[in-house]
C-alpha cells in the first residue's frame, strides 16, 4: 500500500539528490498490520492482540495482588493503585455523574481508564512500541460496551424505550422545533456519540504513532543515506524531534485515556439524569 504522508514528501524532496535503494518508503497504515501467529488468515494473532492479552493479564495480576494484601500504611504499589483509583473515582466518576448515582459505575470507568492508559503507554514502551488502539477493532469493542451500558441505564431509569426517546427532546420548545430537535438529538445519542468515541481514540493513537514513525524512520534514512553533511545533520534533527514527540505522545496517551473515561461518565450522567 503506497500511502504517502505529507512530511515524507518534504523529506523526499530534500533527498531527491541522494540516490538510495529505491528511495524512502514512507510509513503508512500497512505498518500497523502485524500478524505474529497464524499467517494472513482472519484468525491470526496479531501484535496488538498479543499486547492486549498481556496487558489484561498484567493489569489483573497487579490489581488482584494489590487488593489481596491491603495495609493501612501503603507500600509503593498500593499507593499507585490508590492514586489511579482515587483519580477515577473522585475526578471522573463523582464529579461528572454526581454523588448520588456514581457508585455502580466505578468498576466500569476504572477498568476502561486503566486498560486504555496501559495499552496507550505500550505505544512508546521500548520493545513493545505498539499502541493497541491504533487498530480500530479495539476501540470499537470498548465503545460497544459503553454504548450498551448507557442506553440500558437510560431505558431503565426512564422506565421504557418510548419515555427515553421522549426525554431526548428538552421540554418547553415550540411545537415546530420538536421534530427537528428530535432528529438531531437522536442522531447525537445513537450515532455521533459512539462514532466519535471510538474514532477519537483510534485516530489519536494512529496519527501519533504514524508521526513518530515518520520522524524516526525519516531521520534514520536521512542520516544513513544522506549525500551531504547538511542532509545528515537534518536527519539528526529529525531523530531528536522524534524523541521530543515521544514525550508529547505520552501526554496525548494519558489525555486520551482520560477523555474516553470522562466522556463515558458524561454519557452515563446523561442517562441517569432525571431531566434532559
Amino acid at each position, binding site marked *: 500500500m503506497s*500511502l*504517502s*504522508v*505529507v512530511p515524507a*514528501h518534504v523529506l*523526499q*524532496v530534500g533527498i531527491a539528490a541522494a540516490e538510495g535503494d529505491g528511495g524512502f518508503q514512507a510509513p503508512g*497504515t500497512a505498518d500497523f498490520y502485524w500478524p505474529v501467529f497464524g499467517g494472513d488468515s482472519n484468525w491470526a494473532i496479531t501484535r496488538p492482540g498479543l499486547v492486549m492479552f498481556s496487558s489484561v493479564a498484567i493489569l489483573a495480576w497487579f490489581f488482584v495482588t494489590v487488593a489481596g494484601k491491603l495495609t493501612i500504611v501503603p507500600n509503593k504499589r498500593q499507593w499507585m493503585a490508590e492514586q489511579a483509583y482515587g483519580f477515577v473515582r473522585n*475526578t471522573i466518576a463523582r*464529579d*461528572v455523574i454526581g454523588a448520588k448515582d456514581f457508585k455502580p459505575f466505578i468498576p466500569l470507568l476504572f477498568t476502561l481508564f486503566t486498560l486504555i492508559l496501559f495499552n496507550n503507554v505500550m505505544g512508546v514502551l521500548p520493545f513493545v512500541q505498539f499502541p493497541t488502539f491504533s487498530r480500530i477493532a479495539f476501540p470499537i469493542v470498548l465503545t460497544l460496551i459503553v454504548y450498551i451500558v448507557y442506553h440500558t441505564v437510560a431505558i431503565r431509569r426512564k422506565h421504557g424505550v418510548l419515555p427515553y426517546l421522549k426525554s431526548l427532546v428538552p421540554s418547553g420548545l415550540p411545537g415546530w422545533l420538536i421534530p427537528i430537535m428530535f432528529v438531531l438529538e437522536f442522531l447525537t445519542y445513537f450515532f*455521533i456519540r459512539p462514532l*466519535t468515541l471510538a*474514532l*477519537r481514540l483510534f*485516530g*489519536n493513537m494512529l*496519527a501519533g504513532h504514524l508521526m513518530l514513525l515518520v520522524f524516526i524512520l525519516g531521520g534514520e534514512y536521512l542520516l544513513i543515506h544522506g549525500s551531504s553533511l547538511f542532509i545528515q545533520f537534518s536527519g539528526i534533527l529529525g531523530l531528536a524531534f522524534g524523541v521530543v514527540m515521544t514525550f508529547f505522545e505520552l501526554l496525548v496517551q494519558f489525555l486520551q485515556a*482520560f*477523555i474516553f473515561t*470522562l*466522556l463515558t461518565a*458524561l454519557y452515563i450522567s446523561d442517562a441517569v439524569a432525571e431531566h434532559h
Partner: protein
Amino acid sequence: MTGNITFLGYGLAAIGPGIGVGLIFAAYLNGVARQPEARGMLQTIAFTGMALTEALAILGLVFAFVFKG
C-alpha cells in the same frame, strides 16, 4: 512530486478544530486565572468541549483515509 489531495484536504479541515481547541483552552485559562477554586469544574467542561471540537478533526482524518482510494 506525487501525493494525495485528501491529505491537503485534511490539513485544511484541521484549521477550524485547531482554532476551536485554542479558544476553549484560552477560555479555560482565563476562567482558572480569575477563579482558581473553580478549576475542577472548568477542567471537566474544557475537556468535554475539546472532545466535541476535536471530533470534527478526527472525522476529517478518517474521511481522508476513506476517500483516499
